[in-house]
């Protein structure tokens, strides 16, 4: 008898489990929003914004469930392929974003919330998350590329950073620094593209053109790669970054001990200084990146996170409205700076007193930080993205720069041609 009861119980349990999905939320399921992000700080930010939303719109409250998901891109991609288990809203890292635009994007167009406010933004930041004029992602920051100088080292070599306008000035200053202090002027990353690509884009070219065709072996790319090679081997004022890129433990240690006089990275890199290089507090300053020639862009927006609404969202209108509130509103953009230290994409707020307040970054880098920001505000370009982008970045990071700049085993032209050819053969 007991056997039978057990058997029936098991079968009942199996049936019960298979019919109760996590989605059977009940009547108030409408205002539940799930959000996936891959950064803990983003999660805190969204929770804070959800609270503000509920205060502002008491008649339309939301219940936001934020999950910090490691390996988010893979998991989200799989749930969009299979059509189940995706969240309503998700953060996607910019370099894997093109994977989500292949085929028929499983995301909801955001044109109706983006278009009304676009003009107040650095507009190119929307283009990187778009396909054929349809916007799918909302940006977190501009990621304006700037030059960070170690003032202490420059002072020892009697170099005034404000005199460095062009890359030629930079090379001359570098020689001075090298001669007086024995230290390299700058580090060149060999497994990241945060020096190479901004330089190329600054001069009006890119790895891909606006149609997604490969321009990696174009003349500007070649000159730039040659220039980076010269920095190391001809002028001898640069070294390959210890650890390969500026997020390596090796680099933090090296730089914190005053290893090099400068580093070119986007503004969001400020957080790495305050967190990992505490000894440089008060010594670092932020200046615009040098230019090659008159007419070059003053800065290039690098990196980023696009926040999307998936086509599995149960209440897409609510999800879009919350996204618009949390990332596109004026208030949100000031909070993005205050809470996360990102240069907010709605550059209209950069001039505002509510924005220009003292915080841990002005404490670290000095109050002229805002002057630098304002001076580049209206001249910031962004990279072109296409379905080949993830592959191109891997090729540049792990093959091209490594062979040309670190191993010095391939000439710039040969390496660029080889990589470009391979990419073209993959462009289907």
């Amino acid at each position, binding site marked *: 008898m007991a056997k039978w009861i057990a058997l029936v119980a098991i079968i009942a349990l199996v049936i019960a489990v298979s019919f109760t999905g996590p989605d059977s939320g009940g009547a108030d399921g409408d205002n539940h929003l799930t959000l996936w992000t891959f950064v803990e700080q983003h999660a805190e930010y969204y929770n804070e914004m959800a609270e503000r939303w509920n205060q502002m719109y008491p008649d339309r409250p939301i219940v936001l469930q934020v999950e910090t998901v490691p390996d988010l891109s893979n998991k989200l991609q799989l749930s969009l392929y299979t059509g189940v288990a995706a969240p309503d809203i998700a953060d996607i890292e910019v370099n894997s974003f093109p*994977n989500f635009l292949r085929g028929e994007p499983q995301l909801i167009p955001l044109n109706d919330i983006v278009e009304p406010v676009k003009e107040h933004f650095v507009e190119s930041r929307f283009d990187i998350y778009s396909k054929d004029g349809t916007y799918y992602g909302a940006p977190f920051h501009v990621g304006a590329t700037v030059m960070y100088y170690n003032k202490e080292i420059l002072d020892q070599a009697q170099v005034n950073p404000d005199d460095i306008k062009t890359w030629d000035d930079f090379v001359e200053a570098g020689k001075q620094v090298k001669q007086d202090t024995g230290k390299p002027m700058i580090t060149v990353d060999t497994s990241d593209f945060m020096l190479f690509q901004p330089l190329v884009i600054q001069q009006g070219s890119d790895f891909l053109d606006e149609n997604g065709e490969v321009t990696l072996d174009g003349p500007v790319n070649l000159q730039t790669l040659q220039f980076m090679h010269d920095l190391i081997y001809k002028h001898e004022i640069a070294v390959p970054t210890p650890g390969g890129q500026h997020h390596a*433990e090796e680099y933090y240690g090296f730089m914190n001990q005053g290893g090099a006089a400068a580093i070119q990275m986007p503004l969001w890199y400020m957080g790495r200084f305050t967190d990992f290089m505490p000894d440089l507090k008060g010594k670092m300053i932020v200046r615009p990146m040098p230019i090659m020639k008159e007419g070059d862009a003053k800065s290039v927006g690098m990196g980023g996170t696009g926040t999307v609404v998936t086509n599995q969202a149960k209440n897409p209108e609510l999800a879009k409205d919350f996204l618009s509130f949390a990332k596109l509103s004026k208030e949100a953009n000031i909070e993005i700076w205050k809470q996360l230290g990102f240069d907010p994409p709605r550059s209209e707020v950069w001039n505002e007193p509510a924005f220009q307040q003292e915080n841990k970054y002005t404490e670290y880098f000095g109050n002229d930080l805002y002057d630098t920001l304002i001076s580049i505000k209206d001249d910031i370009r962004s990279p072109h993205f296409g379905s080949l982008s993830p592959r191109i970045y891997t090729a540049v990071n792990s093959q091209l720069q490594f062979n040309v700049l670190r191993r010095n085993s391939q000439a710039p032209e040969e390496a660029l041609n080889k990589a470009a050819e391979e990419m073209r053969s993959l462009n289907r």
Partner: protein
Amino acid sequence: MKNTLEPAPNKTVNPERWKIGNLLFSQKTAPYLFIAPFVLSFLLFFLYPITNSVIMSFQEILPGERTFIGLENYSRLLNDHFYRALYNTTIYTLLTLIILIPIPLVLAVILNSKLTFARNFFKSALFIPALTSTVIAGVIFRLMFGQQDSALMNSLLIQLGFSPLQWTNNAYTAMFLMVALASWKWIGINILYFLAALQSISKDLYEAAAIDGAGPWTQFRRITLPLLKPVTVFVVTISIIGGIRMFEESYIFWGASSPADIGLTLSVYLYQQGFDYFDLGFGAAIGLVILFITLVFNLIQWKFFGLFKKEED
């Protein structure tokens, strides 16, 4: 107690119910019931995915659309990255075989001898690495073999008068790192297999051999080695599978893309194409090629050990 001898009254009350009971508890159907869990999980978790990946390997898969593209995924395999992955995987597998078969065998024989000092301590000391996760061990290895002069291995090299190395930036040291990590981790498991086999060899054989005048070396060669053959074949087989499917040892040092492909293995290539670029059809093709290569490697190995010959009397 006498109740047990009486027929249970309710057995006759409801003959209908016992029809199903007979079916479930009869000698004919019970075996099927017992193997059902295995068959079901095999169908669901092995046969279905394998069949599906065979189909996927002939498709281009994009969100919302799947198209058959014939053999294109397979013809795309003819590229430098794949060759490099194949080369790295082959070298890695051979090196791990060279290290992870003879050394554990000899260590097991030593540990099995009653003369060995503190053998229980050494048994557990050699086995403990197998309990750590590859990822955690890899993180420690990465720190030990860091590029700074202050990293453990480089500071040792400097102490000894050599120049420091960029361990993770050079093809030879990269292979060394992966093989060293795998050897450190797997040696204990293989010792365990060999020890188990050694303990099942009868002591009488050694006694008889000793009486006949065989020395330790002859005993090892004529008794130990031949009797260890079945377990050796087993260890070689799983080592080959482990070598060809190796992923973590490379991923922990470089992620999915290593400088100049020095750490690229077949599994890492599959992961890179399938999940970094979401080229799922191509990834499926790589997976099937890995399956095929594993099969070929093992068939050669079995042939070498004479597994296809009939037992000789």
